[in-house]
């Protein structure tokens, strides 16, 4: 079956089980996104595979380990490893999250929620500025999904994120699935969230699937990246891009990773939405 080319702004997450596939089959996409930390070891097999893949694809470095919300300063070793990777791979985007992961010398390998307070804002901005100064490039900050709120938060997440952008001049990575999940978990309107985000500062969009966890008292939605993008998230994506235009758009899938074809098919859906909104200026690979 012949498919139209995938829009050049649509990419997929490059995960370890697919390294051989992208090395050998080279599907027609222009860019892939990696989890930066998985490639810090310069002599690892996966790093060497990435360097080969880089010959055929643009790469975006998406971090999960900078722990930008930690009250502790950014880990210098981590930062230097990230810079080394960026210097070697020359990614077109570098990003991390509005979250924290490290305290007291322990790293919890998860995107933990921040209280949205003035103190946390100052800490977060301090760390973003540290990283941007060190890397000599702007960082994209991604909104997280979350399963709890703090009693003493004083502003909303979208207000916090917009203020981070204003104070640090960073760029933004909007994850529509995270907004959808958090909107359900915390009872806010996703459209209200999106209205609070400066669209002209958004350089990338993430799309992924989530899982519903049933507890005795009700449902809680978990951002598992283990399923296809939900219909509601496609609708959010379509509505936002129709209003604000296309951005680099990524299909993320991190658990129960399917065959590459499933991922590519999801990319085709995103591509079709972008092609539909800009019929007069189609940019295809």
């Amino acid at each position, binding site marked *: 079956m012949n498919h139209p080319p995938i829009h050049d702004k649509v990419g997929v997450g490059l995960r370890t089980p697919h390294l051989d596939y992208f090395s050998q089959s080279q599907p027609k996409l222009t860019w892939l996104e990696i989890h930066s930390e998985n490639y810090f070891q310069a002599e690892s097999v996966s790093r060497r595979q990435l360097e080969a893949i880089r010959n055929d694809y643009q790469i975006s470095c998406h971090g999960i380990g900078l722990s930008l919300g930690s*009250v502790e300063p950014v880990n210098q070793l981590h930062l230097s490893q990230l810079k080394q990777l960026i210097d070697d791979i020359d990614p077109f985007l570098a990003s991390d999250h509005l979250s924290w992961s490290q305290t007291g010398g322990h790293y919890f390998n998860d995107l933990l929620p921040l209280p949205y307070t003035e103190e946390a804002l100052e800490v977060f901005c301090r760390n973003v500025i540290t990283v941007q100064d060190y890397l000599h490039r702007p960082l994209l900050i991604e909104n997280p999904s979350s399963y709890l709120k703090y009693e003493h938060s004083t502003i909303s997440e979208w207000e916090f994120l917009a203020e981070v952008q204003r104070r640090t001049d960073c760029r933004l990575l909007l994850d529509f699935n995270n907004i959808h999940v958090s909107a359900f978990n915390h009872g806010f309107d996703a459209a209200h969230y999106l209205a609070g985000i400066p669209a002209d500062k958004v350089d990338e969009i993430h799309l992924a699937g989530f899982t519903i966890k049933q507890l005795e008292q009700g449902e809680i939605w978990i951002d598992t990246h283990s399923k296809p993008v939900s219909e509601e998230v496609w609708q959010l994506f379509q509505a936002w891009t129709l209003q604000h235009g296309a951005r680099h758009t990524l299909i993320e899938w991190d658990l129960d990773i399917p065959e590459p074809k499933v991922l590519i098919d999801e990319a085709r859906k995103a591509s079709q939405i972008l092609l539909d909104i800009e019929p007069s200026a189609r940019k295809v690979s």
Partner: protein
Amino acid sequence: MTYSLAEIQHQFGQALRYQNQGERCHIASDHFSSEQRIQIYRNNFVISVIDVLKATYPLCEALVGDSCFEQLARQHALSFPPTSGDITTYGKGFEQTIIQFPSVLEAAPYLPDMAKFEWCFDATHAQRQSTLPASFQPLTALPNVEESQHSQLVFLLKTHIVMFQSDFALFTLRQAIQSGQLDGLDIHRPESGFVRHLEDGSLETQIVSAPCYALLDCFIQHSPLGAIAPDLLAHLNTLIELDVIAGFSIHES
């Protein structure tokens, strides 16, 4: 009321390791309790670290089964959480957690050594980043060395080799697990050898005799030939044939 970010993060970190309750993290509770909400993060943390350990210790997992391995890994995650965002380097010292489980040790006394053996597989990657000294010369330059200097020769091993020995037949056990042929394996047989990653990224394990292993150890200690027992040096050709020697330098006396 406001709480400092440092306090929040300290309490949260403690709660993730089950060292305090979600109630101390100042989480807003509604139809879900703060304990239920923080349990989601505990699960994310523990499961993600277990997955990392499974990737590093697949042979240990194969030996004890998924359920038992997850209990061991969970204990390790909570006792020794990662210290770095580069989670690919996590897992050192897993054998110390295993020895805290007497029933596991009784059933599989070789498991701590197997964990150490598997850690070597990761360690060979790290070693590849080290460099040979400036005084290094390749083996092809050996004929140019004057005989009077032979006792000062120091052989240097290739940088991606890690030595390993155990009172158990772990090299053979690894091959048996991979081939699915465990019948007739005598696990209570000491084995020694080395682990290395080949240029294509594949992993090779090689059993060597006790004297060969002792000679390898001398080379790792940078002992000059004159300081090595002659009966060990009789095994030098074996090591050269195994392609573990990168070259040599001349020891300055």
